[in-house]
């Protein structure tokens, strides 16, 4: 690998395959394990159904209650902002839609580039704010682990390199694009083995909670 173009082709070729395989094996292994182990059998007679309360909790836990907002407005607000920004950039940027279409054959409408650009810029600022908050807030700092900082770094680098590549701020461009793709591949590789798994388990966990409450006839 002696040139930027070789590097780009490596990230688009063998490295992408490796990352995708590790991601798929790791994620499915974890999800299947979670589903198969399930919950301990509850022998008590159910007071109500499970499914509907489960889905209701998926919704209610996604919208913060007023108390949570008053206690931690920064977490709620900035957390929401950067998550939305990240998802918009990930799912609605034309090159990303084309990537999914190229690999899986499915596609959906994308947003105009300048709109995605604004979301990305806001996401970058929000991510920096979350790090500053994590480092300055005594409780957050105390409970933060190495994994938290690792995940933040990888997520931030994915967004930052994407922003640099889009604005062509690194020369030559194949190097900029290759860096972005490599960061995204590292993101895919660590996803099943870190807290990033929440991308796939959050709603499952919320449903489990809601279903358990529903069964007991408790409002959640």
């Amino acid at each position, binding site marked *: 690998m002696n040139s930027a173009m070789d590097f780009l082709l490596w990230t688009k070729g063998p490295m992408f395959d490796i990352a*995708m395989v590790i991601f798929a*094996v*790791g994620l499915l292994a974890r999800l299947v394990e979670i589903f198969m182990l399930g919950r301990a059998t509850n022998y008590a007679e159910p007071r109500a159904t499970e499914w509907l309360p489960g889905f209701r909790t998926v919704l209610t836990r996604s919208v913060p209650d007023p108390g949570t907002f008053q206690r931690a407005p920064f977490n709620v607000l900035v957390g929401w902002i950067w998550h939305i920004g990240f998802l918009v950039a990930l799912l609605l940027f034309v090159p990303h839609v084309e990537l999914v279409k190229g690999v899986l054959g499915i596609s959906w409408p994308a947003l105009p580039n300048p709109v995605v650009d604004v979301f990305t810029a806001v996401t970058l600022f929000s991510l920096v704010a979350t790090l500053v908050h994590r480092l300055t807030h005594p409780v957050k700092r105390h409970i933060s682990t190495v994994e938290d900082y690792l995940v933040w770094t990888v997520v931030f680098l994915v967004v930052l390199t994407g922003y640099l590549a889009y604005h062509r701020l690194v020369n030559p461009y194949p190097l900029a694009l290759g860096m972005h793709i490599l960061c995204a591949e590292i993101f895919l590789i660590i996803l099943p083995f870190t807290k990033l798994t929440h991308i796939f388990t959050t709603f499952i966990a919320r449903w489990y909670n809601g279903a358990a409450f529903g069964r007991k006839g408790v409002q959640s």
Partner: protein
Amino acid sequence: MATPIPEKTLGERLRDHGLSRRGFLKLCAATASMMALPASMVPRIAAALEQARRPSVIWLSFQECTGCTESLTRSHAPTLEDLILKMVSLDYHHTLQAAAGEAAEEARLQAMEANAGEYLVIVDGSIPGPDANPGFSTVAGQSNYDILMETVEHAAAVIAVGTCAAFGGLPQARPNPTGAMSVMDLVKDKPVINVSGCPPVPMVITGVLAHYLTFGRLPDLDAYGRPMAFFGQSIHDRCYRRPFYDKGLFAESFDDQGAKEGWCLYRLGCKGPTTYNACATMKWNGGTSWPIESGHPCLGCSEPSFWDGGGFYEPVSVPLTANAGTLLTAGAVGAVVGGGSAALAKHGVKKADAERQPVTIDELEQTQ
């Protein structure tokens, strides 16, 4: 055939061909502008070209399709490309020289001897490397590799014209059956200038030669040994369709409304974002048009590995080999691993249940 330092200067020769002083200065100004040099350099270029002796040029054609020569010679006359053929003494060129057989080879050897240390070597086509079967490509019974090494030994510099000579091009595409290598892979002790493209923009060759004649040295080069003046900016950055990319307006097929409106061709596989060349500014066929202007995505022909760099109609962001089959297979393997792991855990719990030995308080007391 060989020209050991011609009698006439370049200025005299151009005047002989009917070029007026005004025309000559226009040529110099065009050269300066083409090479991105300040206007103040025009008199210097004029003075240098006026006095320049035509350098001897040996053009070696190896594993190539003659497209690069076609590009240079079929350009509309009178142009800089036409003039360049008068600016140099082309002492050896398969396609263009009158001599054939041994006489042709003799011309090359004579030119090398008469202009040792001063002649320029232009190469088009890739070369089967030293470890490859030399029989893949020979000229007069000599392997391409041997001819190249023999010819560049006393050259002033080497200009690799076309992507095959510059980066290996089509012959080097996987599985590279002939062990094709580029000039810069093989020539390490001479300056090598890469004028890549399939074919390259003819004026780039002209510009490099004019720069050499004017300043006595080669132009500034990028990381791939290409002249910065022509390869310093990407197609994407100079594309007239760029505003559509910035606005998010894309053609999604070759005949949709977007294509008719001239929107960005990114989604149709345009490699403009990763390609560095002068097509967008210099255009082709006497400035008539260029691929993107005629509605076709850039293929990225001036970049290394462009044949192996993904499908021509796949957007830049699409991975080269990944597909749904790989993803599903990996997912299935993951599911089996997860299932096995969960089954093992469940088995462990069951086994512990089955083997559990109830202990009574009496037994515990007895053991103490």
